[in-house]
């Protein structure tokens, strides 16, 4: 017998986490991947405390999520619940600062600039603080696809981008904005639940290989990002969409964090 039972120490209590484990892979962000002989898989935020190889016991020490202090990031969300806007209606967006689509109400938003690029025209957007979000009204003139991006320079450089659709258009071949760090859709069309969605990470306009891209969705129960992806040599990665609502992709390189909000359409 080569497999082991994995136990986790939570608040001083030891409990069985998984039986018959034959693969343990420590990953990034203090995650440990476990797989057992029955095909079960788990990802836990923990460190290995002890390995009793003769007794086939592995003991993990849980790492409290709150103990891992994340960098705050900016992200955009549309003020609509069906993924696109109609021509002639007010196009409103909200800007948040926080982590994992959970706003931090104490976060500083000073010095934030927002822009919209539509039909080749770049416009500055006015921002209005409203409760935990900053709101922006893009007016009623937009039609087709518009790219929004937000920038804030504090001790870190933060970018947030989103593509919004006004009317029922199908677009492909969307152009990057040219930000220092940017997440762009590989092939923008209507992103739907139950389909795979691809993104590409660009650094100064060039594909960033081997970057960790985190992905989350608005209704997640997890305090941390539920998905951790890795870009390939073309800076690309993909995610199968299994949750309703919008998704957020986030990438960090050095002191720069850039997010991309995938607004799901139906």
């Amino acid at each position, binding site marked *: 017998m080569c497999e082991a039972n994995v136990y986790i120490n939570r608040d001083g209590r030891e409990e069985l986490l998984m039986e018959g484990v034959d693969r343990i892979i420590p990953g990034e962000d203090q995650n440990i991947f476990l797989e057992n002989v029955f095909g079960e*898989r788990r990802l836990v935020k923990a460190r290995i405390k002890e390995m009793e190889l003769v007794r086939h016991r592995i003991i993990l020490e849980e790492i409290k999520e709150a103990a891992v202090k994340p960098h705050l990031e900016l992200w955009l969300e549309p003020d609509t619940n069906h993924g696109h806007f109609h021509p002639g209606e007010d196009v409103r967006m909200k800007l948040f600062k926080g982590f994992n689509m959970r706003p931090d109400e104490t976060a500083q938003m000073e010095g934030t600039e927002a822009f919209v690029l539509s039909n080749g025209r770049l416009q500055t957007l006015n921002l209005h603080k409203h409760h935990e979000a900053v709101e922006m009204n893009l007016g009623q003139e937009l039609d087709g696809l518009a790219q929004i991006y937000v920038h804030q320079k504090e001790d870190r450089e933060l970018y947030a981008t989103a593509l919004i659709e006004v009317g029922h258009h199908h677009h492909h071949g969307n152009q990057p904005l040219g930000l220092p760090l940017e997440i762009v859709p590989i092939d923008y069309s209507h992103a739907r639940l139950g389909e795979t969605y691809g993104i590409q990470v660009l650094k100064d306009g060039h594909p960033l290989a081997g970057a960790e891209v985190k992905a989350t969705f608005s209704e997640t129960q997890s305090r941390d990002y539920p998905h951790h992806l890795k870009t390939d040599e073309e800076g690309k990665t993909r995610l199968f969409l*299994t949750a309703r609502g919008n998704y957020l992709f986030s990438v960090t390189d050095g002191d720069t964090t850039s997010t991309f909000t995938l607004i799901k359409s139906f």
Partner: protein
Amino acid sequence: MCKNMPPLELAIQFHGHICPGLLMGVRAAEFAQKYLEVNPDQDEELLAIVETNSCGVDAIQAVLGCTFGKGNLIFKDYGKNVYTVASREKNRAVRIAQKYLAQPHPDNARYRELSCKDSLTEPEAVEKENLLASIFERLMTIPFEELFNWQEIEFAFPEKAQIYPTVQCSICGEGVMEPRAVLNGQLYICPTCA
């Protein structure tokens, strides 16, 4: 809604949440639609006979438009995940039966275990969410033949659902569909009062 929702979204909206049973129903419904080369039902062009009253039936209703209220969803209480979908226009029917798995996938077993709990701790809620994501991707991408057996069958189409007059119950005064009422002399009595 302002344009056609994808079948998956329709089913989730109708059912209220995402669960493995609903996803299986979506696979069966989409397969039936493609196999019979039909559009979702408008006015009883399609008929579905379902042999279960579990989650998958809501996908049959939402995706195919065979609904309880319209009368083109016939429920047989056999406790089997079997769906027969028939097209009047094509004069064809397909019977789709979920395969029996003696040993369910461990993710499904654990998901069921967590779903049966009255309340979940935060780590359990996260685990359940992760399990559902994993099950979701597997169920929606696995080849159909690994999930279901199917065969085209001879099908005797019943009459379209009838619309009956409403009569008044002589005891409670409420309206009742005439064939459901008991006639006591000249007076109707509804099943509740009978």
